[in-house]
């Protein structure tokens, strides 16, 4: 513990990209979101999950990393030798049918049951709205329809709140049985990868539990950065560091450090 940031061979974002990539199992169909997940999918497909298949909401399916670095899923290298170029409704239909194993979404605000807000901070009426965020995009669909989803977040007390102001992307609602009650037929978040650690969900209560802390981060730091009394796994592990091979791949996909620089 206590390795100084400057002396590390990787940035926090690189650690998060790697941790997210490791959630992808070989052969899985992955609905790839914007930002860090763009890199995580390419990393996984180049490392431990060569048979993973990437699905992108603008209507792309591809099973290999783009031949050149990309900043958005619509960058032309991401279309080159894709396995399918189609309609948003086509790829969303795959998702709705249950053909997508996992997906990633990011958020501004999350609560203990993994409900995610990327729409409104404060309230929904003028005067009450403190901050208007960009909205769902495909995130609500991924949270509702993928077999599981992974949340990627900055870990701060103002973002980790007891109850989100607005559910853009449903997690487990108010706990056990909620997804079934509202009509969601599958899925739910299985991990939250933050700037401090990795959290998972108690299968019995659907509540978030601290599973691992990143190197140099203490459990107390995580607790102090969480807006409710966070449950902690009996034995909190340290998030595995990226290997040299993984680091080389991340830097190949993000050579300028646009997503993973300091």
């Amino acid at each position: 513990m206590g390795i100084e940031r400057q002396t590390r061979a990787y940035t926090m974002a690189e650690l998060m990209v790697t941790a997210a990539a490791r959630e992808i199992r070989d052969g899985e169909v992955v609905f790839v979101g914007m930002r860090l997940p763009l890199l995580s999918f390419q990393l996984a497909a180049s490392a431990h999950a060569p048979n993973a298949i990437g699905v992108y909401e603008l209507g792309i399916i591809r099973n290999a990393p783009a031949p050149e670095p990309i900043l958005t899923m619509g960058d032309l290298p991401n279309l080159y030798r894709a396995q399918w170029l189609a309609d948003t409704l086509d790829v969303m239909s795959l998702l709705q049918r249950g053909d997508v194993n996992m997906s990633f979404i990011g958020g501004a605000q999350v609560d203990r049951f993994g409900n995610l807000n990327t729409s409104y901070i404060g309230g929904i009426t003028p005067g009450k709205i403190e901050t208007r965020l960009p909205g769902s995009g495909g995130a609500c669909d991924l949270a509702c329809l993928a077999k599981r989803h992974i949340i990627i977040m900055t870990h701060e007390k103002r973002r980790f709140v007891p109850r989100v102001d607005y559910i853009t992307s449903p997690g487990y609602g108010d706990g056990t049985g909620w997804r079934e009650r509202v009509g969601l037929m599958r899925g739910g978040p299985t991990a939250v990868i933050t700037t401090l650690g990795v959290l998972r969900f108690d299968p019995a209560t659907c509540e978030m539990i601290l599973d691992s802390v990143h190197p140099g981060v203490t459990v107390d730091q995580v607790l102090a950065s969480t807006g409710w009394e966070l449950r902690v796994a009996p034995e909190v592990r340290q998030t595995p560091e990226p290997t040299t091979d993984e680091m080389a791949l991340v830097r190949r996909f993000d050579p300028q450090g646009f997503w993973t620089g300091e």
Partner: protein
Amino acid sequence: MMDPMPTTKLISLSQAITQFVPDGATVVLGVGLESCIPFAAGHEIIRQRKRDLTLVGPISDMLFDQLIGAGCARAVRAAWVGNVITGSGYNFRRAVENGNIQIEDHSNLTLALALRAGAMGVPFLPTRTALGSDLFSTNTSLKTITCPFTAERLTAVSAITPDVTILHVQRADAGGHAHLWGNFGVAREAALASRHIIICAEEIVAAEVIERDPNRVIAPGLRVSAVVHAPWGAHPSPVPGYYNRDHQMFLDYQRDSQTPEVFAKWQAKWVDGAKTSDAYLELLGQERIAELRLKNHARAEAVDYGY
């Protein structure tokens, strides 16, 4: 009744916007999500000082923010409004936070289905998304229903039937037949749901170029109202086969939209100061244009449509 011998639909961008985007219209833009966003058409809407538009689109990478900043929009029906690689759209944020715009919050799937319902001529379509979300509280086009066959709880998405969809494509003929390739986003749904379609094309080609490859035609020409020659008209978004995404423009826009004052300067330079595609390209500069052009061509084999 369709005209058996269609006359040319080729008109100027300015004419197309004047004729088919009246004040108060519901307009679909940015159907490709990150690609083929009709920025040139959006900028012409700003130059013509259109007002009270309802903007419809899934992601609208940056263009909606510009139209909102310029005061053109009364309402937005979208899944996401911002700048994809930087996050927030500041004009959008200001307008919502100050109560200056009406918002209907969609997901990409509910928006695609709303347009598909419009395209199909049905009042709604069912889906399993959005259940349990708060989209229902900020979108009156969504309601929960019980399936008449299975008794499952579902989301019903009300149809959207826009006045006009503006599609940016690679090539079109003067009669309104257009080739689009790459990812399609919600292009088909939006085009078929709308009363009018404006095609903005990188190139205008002979009808036979389009006819020789009918699978690539994105919407039936009989539904197209106007064809516009708009080279580089999707810049800074990418167009497959033509040019790459100009990331720098999106990065600069984050700075250039942070306050109404800097946005006004941005608009004066890039919209009001570049009234034609030639003027816009001159502003962009030869070096930048050359950098964005394709470096690696990857042509597909021709297919045989013969008999």
